[in-house]
C-alpha cells in the first residue's frame, strides 16, 4: 500500500482521476432461502437444496423469510442508513438457464434501505464513502460449462438464496480505497452476523463501475461495469486495467462505450461481455405475488436493540478507555474475531501487554501458519494466563516467548508448561543474593574495573546471573540487588 491513497493515471500533460462505484452482492446469512424453505448451506450435492418454488414449477408462489428482512435492516443500521418503512419487490425479467422463473425477484424503485455511509481508515486519514441503497433480491442458480463438453449443466441450489445488493455512491478513487471499502463492509456485516463475507464461496462479490476523468473535472465520464468480480485482488487488478484502457481511449481521441465487461483473471484484462443487439430491457414491475413490505418504526427500533457494538464505535472505545493508539485499535477491531479474542484476553489481563502480544507474537504466528484468529492454536484463555505470569513476575518476557512457542504447538495451560519445565522465575531475594555473591566472587577483577568507572560491565554481571540461573532470575530484582552489591 502506498503512503497516500491518491491514485492517478498520468499521460504526458494529462492527469486522470479514477471514479469507482460498487454494487456489492452479499449473501444473507440465513438457514433458508428468501422466498422458499430450502437450505442455503454451501457445498451440497447439485440440485439437492431446490424446492418446487426455487425451480419455478407452475403455480408455485413466494413467501418471504422474516429473518432475511431483519438481516437487511440490521445491515442498513450498520451502514448508518435510512430504513424505509415501505419497500416493494419487483420482478426483473430476463431469460437465462440458471434463472428458473424467467425473472429475478428484486427491489427496484423502493428498496428496503436508503442512503447511508461507511468510514474508511486510509493512511492519510479517514474517508466517508456514501451508500446509495441496499435492497433484497434472489440469487440465481449456477451454470456449469466444464463438465459436459456438449451441454451446459444447471444447479439450482443457490437459486433463491437471499442477497443484499449494496450500492455505493461513486465516491471511491483508487484500488486501495476499494480494498478498504470491501474490507470495512465485510467487517461490519460480520460484526452484525448478516453475511459471512466468504468470497471464495461467493458470499460476497461485486460489480465494479469504473470511469475516468481529468483531474479537477466535476463531470463523470462514461462508465463501464465489470460484472461479478469475486476477490479484492481481482477487483483491484480489473480497476487498474480498465482505468488505463479508458485513459488510452481518451488519449487516442476515441469514445468510451457504456457497456458491461468481464474480468478475465487469466489474461488480467477486461473485455466486452454482451453484444449490443442483446441490449437488456428488464421490464421491472411490482411482483403481483407479493405485497408491499411494510415495516413500522417499532419493528426497526426492536432490531436496533440487537445491534452489537460495531467496528467504528469499538475502535473509539478502545482508544478512549484503553489508551490504544489509533493504529492498534484499527487492527484490533478490523475483524470481529480479532476483537472478540482481544476482549477475552483483556478481561483478566493487562491491556498494554495484551495488545503487544496479540498484534506482535500472535499475529506473526497466525501469519506464518496462514490461520485465521478463530483457528488460533493458542486460546485467548491461555494467552491471557501467559500474560499474567509475565505481569506478576512469575516468568520473564524472554521465558514467555519460549513458553509461547511451546503453546503454539499444543494449546496447553502455560502454568503446566512452567511447572513441568521448571521455568518459574527466581524471585526469592535470598536465593538471588547467593547467586550474585557467587558471581561477584568469581569475577573479582571485573568488580574492580566496574568500581573504577567501567559502568558498561553492569550488563556483564546481569548476563552472567541470567546464564547461571538458566534465564529464570527475575530481571527487576536481579538489577536491584546487583546495584546495591556493587556500590558496597
Amino acid at each position, binding site marked *: 500500500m502506498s503512503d497516500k491513497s491518491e491514485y492517478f493515471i498520468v499521460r504526458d500533460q494529462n492527469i486522470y482521476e479514477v471514479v469507482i462505484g460498487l454494487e456489492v452482492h452479499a449473501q444473507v446469512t440465513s438457514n*433458508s432461502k428468501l422466498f422458499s424453505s430450502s437450505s442455503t448451506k454451501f457445498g451440497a450435492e447439485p440440485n439437492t437444496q*431446490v424446492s418446487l418454488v426455487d425451480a419455478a414449477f407452475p403455480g408455485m408462489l413466494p413467501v418471504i423469510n422474516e429473518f432475511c428482512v431483519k438481516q437487511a435492516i440490521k445491515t442498513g443500521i450498520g451502514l448508518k442508513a435510512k430504513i424505509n418503512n415501505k419497500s416493494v419487490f419487483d420482478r426483473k425479467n430476463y431469460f437465462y438457464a440458471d434463472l428458473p422463473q424467467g425473472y429475478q425477484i428484486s427491489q427496484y424503485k423502493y428498496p428496503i434501505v436508503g442512503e447511508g455511509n461507511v468510514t474508511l481508515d486510509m493512511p492519510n486519514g479517514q474517508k466517508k464513502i456514501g451508500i446509495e441503497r441496499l435492497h433484497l433480491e434472489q440469487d440465481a442458480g449456477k451454470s456449469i460449462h466444464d463438465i459436459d463438453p456438449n451441454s*451446459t*449443466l*444447471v444447479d439450482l441450489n443457490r437459486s433463491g438464496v437471499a442477497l443484499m445488493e449494496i450500492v455505493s455512491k461513486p465516491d471511491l478513487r483508487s484500488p486501495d480505497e476499494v480494498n478498504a471499502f470491501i474490507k470495512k463492509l465485510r467487517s461490519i456485516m460480520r460484526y452484525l452476523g448478516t453475511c459471512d463475507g466468504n468470497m471464495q464461496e461467493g458470499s460476497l462479490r461485486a460489480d465494479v463501475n469504473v470511469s475516468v476523468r481529468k483531474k479537477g473535472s466535476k463531470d463523470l465520464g462514461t462508465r463501464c461495469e465489470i460484472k461479478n468480480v469475486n476477490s479484492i485482488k481481482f477487483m483491484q487488478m480489473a480497476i487498474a486495467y480498465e482505468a488505463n484502457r479508458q485513459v488510452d481511449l481518451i488519449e487516442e481521441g476515441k469514445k468510451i462505450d457504456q457497456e458491461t465487461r468481464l474480468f478475465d483473471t487469466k489474461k488480467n484484462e477486461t473485455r466486452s461481455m454482451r453484444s449490443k443487439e442483446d441490449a437488456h430491457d428488464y421490464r421491472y414491475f411490482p411482483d403481483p405475488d407479493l405485497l*408491499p413490505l411494510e415495516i413500522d418504526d417499532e419493528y426497526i427500533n426492536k432490531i436496533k436493540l440487537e445491534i452489537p457494538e460495531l467496528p467504528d464505535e469499538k475502535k473509539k472505545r478502545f482508544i478512549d478507555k484503553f489508551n490504544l493508539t489509533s493504529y492498534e485499535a484499527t487492527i484490533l477491531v478490523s475483524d470481529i474475531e480479532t476483537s472478540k479474542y482481544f476482549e477475552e484476553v483483556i478481561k483478566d489481563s493487562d491491556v498494554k501487554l495484551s495488545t503487544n502480544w496479540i498484534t506482535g507474537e500472535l499475529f506473526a504466528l497466525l501469519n506464518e501458519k496462514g490461520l485465521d484468529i478463530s483457528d488460533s492454536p493458542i486460546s485467548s484463555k491461555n494467552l491471557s494466563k501467559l500474560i499474567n505470569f509475565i505481569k506478576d513476575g512469575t516468568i520473564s518476557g524472554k521465558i514467555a516467548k519460549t513458553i509461547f512457542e511451546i503453546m503454539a504447538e499444543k494449546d496447553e495451560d502455560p502454568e503446566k508448561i512452567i511447572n513441568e519445565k521448571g521455568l518459574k522465575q527466581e524471585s526469592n531475594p535470598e536465593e538471588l543474593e547467593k547467586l550474585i555473591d557467587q558471581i561477584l566472587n568469581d569475577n573479582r577483577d571485573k568488580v574492580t574495573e566496574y568500581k573504577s568507572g567501567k559502568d558498561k560491565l553492569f550488563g556483564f554481571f546481569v548476563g552472567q546471573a541470567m546464564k547461571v540461573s538458566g534465564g529464570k532470575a527475575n530481571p527487576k530484582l536481579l538489577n536491584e540487588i546487583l546495584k546495591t552489591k556493587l556500590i558496597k
Partner: protein
Amino acid sequence: MVVCDNIFYHMTIDLKTVKHISKLARISLEEKKAEKLATDMNSIFEFIEKLNELNTDNVEPLTSIAETTLRFRDDKITSENIREKILKNSPEKNDDFFVVPKVVE
C-alpha cells in the same frame, strides 16, 4: 374528459417493434406471423388507448388488490432433498442437473 398531456400514445406498432418485442419475449416469429401480430396489436392498442381520456396525475397506482400487508415466514428449512421430483419432468435426462444447450460466455 381531460387528455393527459404528458403521455404520448397514438404510436403505431411497426414490424421492427414487433420483432424487438419478440426477441425480448424469446418467441421466434416468422415474417408473416409478425405482420399479422403487428396488425392485431395495433387494433388492440387502438382500443387500449381509450385510457388516454383519463387524467390520472394524482391517482395512486393500485398494485395489489389484497388489502393486507406482506406476511412473514419463519427462517426454517422445511423442504428436504427432492432432486428426483425436481428433475423428473426435465426434457433432457440427467440424474443430477438440468441440461441446456452449451452456453459460451
